[in-house]
């Protein structure tokens, strides 16, 4: 049997039999990516909206900075966070190196610029439409931000999923600050890298299949929601 076929069968077996180690890795991956996404959205959505609707000196420079940061190399981010949280670093006293917390911080640094930049682009478009109405109605800033985010919710969903995609598929930063420690900081992508280097292709492939399935399901859900929204002219 071809090596790929063999690995594929073993991979499917791991998925179907709910392999314990596989699901432990899966759970940690979702936990780390989910928390970093949540925190990034908490910072990025209002910040992106503010950048879109407020005119201030240096606004364009800030937008350019965030756009540039969208392409931050994960290994560089990993190295920066490593230097910050390692024993001799300024935040070494926290003792979070090689913990999921350090991985969450690294992922946040990677995905927050994505959330900020894409949110700013979307809100800028909708704010052109609403601006005069909101000024005329004297809508307070905080209510305007909420309204923009709510009315752009279907487009914002795409932003959130883009952030999630970046977080869940990221390997460079989390392997540096997480250390890929079994039962502690081992996530899907770091396991794929490790098992591939060990020649254990079945587990790597099983995780690869799951990663692809996640991408497929999220995209399916996203497209369904957006199509439904478009039908009602909410998007």
């Amino acid at each position, binding site marked *: 049997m071809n090596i790929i076929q063999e690995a594929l069968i073993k991979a499917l077996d791991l998925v179907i039999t709910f392999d314990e180690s596989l699901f432990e890795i899966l759970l940690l991956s979702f936990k780390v990516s989910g928390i970093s996404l949540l925190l990034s959205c908490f910072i990025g959505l209002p910040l992106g909206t503010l950048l879109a609707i407020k005119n201030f000196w240096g606004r364009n420079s800030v937008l350019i900075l965030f756009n540039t940061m969208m392409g931050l190399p994960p290994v560089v981010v990993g190295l920066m966070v490593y230097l910050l949280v390692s024993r001799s670093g300024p935040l070494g006293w926290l003792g979070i190196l090689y913990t999921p917390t350090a991985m969450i911080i690294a992922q946040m640094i990677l995905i927050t610029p994505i959330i900020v930049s894409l949110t700013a682009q979307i809100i800028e478009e909708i704010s052109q439409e609403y601006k005069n109405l909101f000024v*005329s109605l004297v809508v307070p800033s905080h209510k305007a931000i909420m309204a923009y985010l709510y009315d752009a919710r279907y487009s914002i969903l795409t932003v959130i999923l883009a952030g999630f995609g970046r977080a869940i598929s990221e390997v460079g930063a989390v392997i540096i600050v997480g250390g890929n420690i079994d039962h502690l900081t081992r996530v899907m992508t770091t396991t794929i890298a490790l098992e591939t280097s060990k020649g254990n292709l079945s587990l790597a492939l099983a995780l690869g299949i799951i990663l692809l399935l996640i991408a497929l399901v999220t995209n399916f859900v996203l497209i369904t929601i957006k199509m439904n929204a478009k039908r009602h002219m909410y998007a």
Partner: protein
Amino acid sequence: MLNGICMHNKDKLLENEITPIVADNLSVSFGNINILNDVSFKIENKHITAVIGPNGAGKSVLLQTINGLTNIQEGKITFNSFLNSNAVRKKQALVFQYPTLLRRSVLSNMEFIAEIYKNADRKIIQNTLIRCGLDGYDQKSARLLSGGEKQRLSLARALLSQPSILLLDEPTANLDPFSLKLIEDIILEENEKGTCIILTTHDMAQAKRLAKNIIFMNKGKVIEQTDADIFFKKPKTTQASKYIHGEILL
């Protein structure tokens, strides 16, 4: 002077009338283009004022300037001697020529205004929708409404804020007779309740039906401000006379 309010303090403003509206030598430019040029007028009473004039005369910009949406380069506009401010703007409502509706249902559009002005419960919202011929439209997407329905929703939202000054930018342009009559009836009812109404229109018959005062504009200037009866029977200027008779103004 506090936030652009002169002569009185902010609390006092909330109790006061915001008419008469007085514009003194107003000039508004967009880039290098002068849109309003040395515009002066006085709207003293709570009658309906129609701002008329050919396309590009500056009627819509004038309404937006009254509502504080444009930057005034020269001159000033006062509301019972108050300069424009958020407090003054809260007593106005502007219905845009092309309604901007939130990407939500009809009811959510209304609830948004009710939440900002904190002055309307579900019953008032429903009554306003019924009054504007939008009964049963609650859950319909606002952006799926027809042109007339959108305009009526826009008017319903404006009414919900219970304005002292209602600014209407061509409220019945391209509407069917039902929407036209309904909107005109509401305008008259609101005016009877004491709301000062300023509207722009190209429909001379409508201006005759509704307006007590006429402000005639051309090329960013107020050419004539007079009583509607006088304006339509015996306009003071040749430009106004030509406009009424459908002749081209050069």
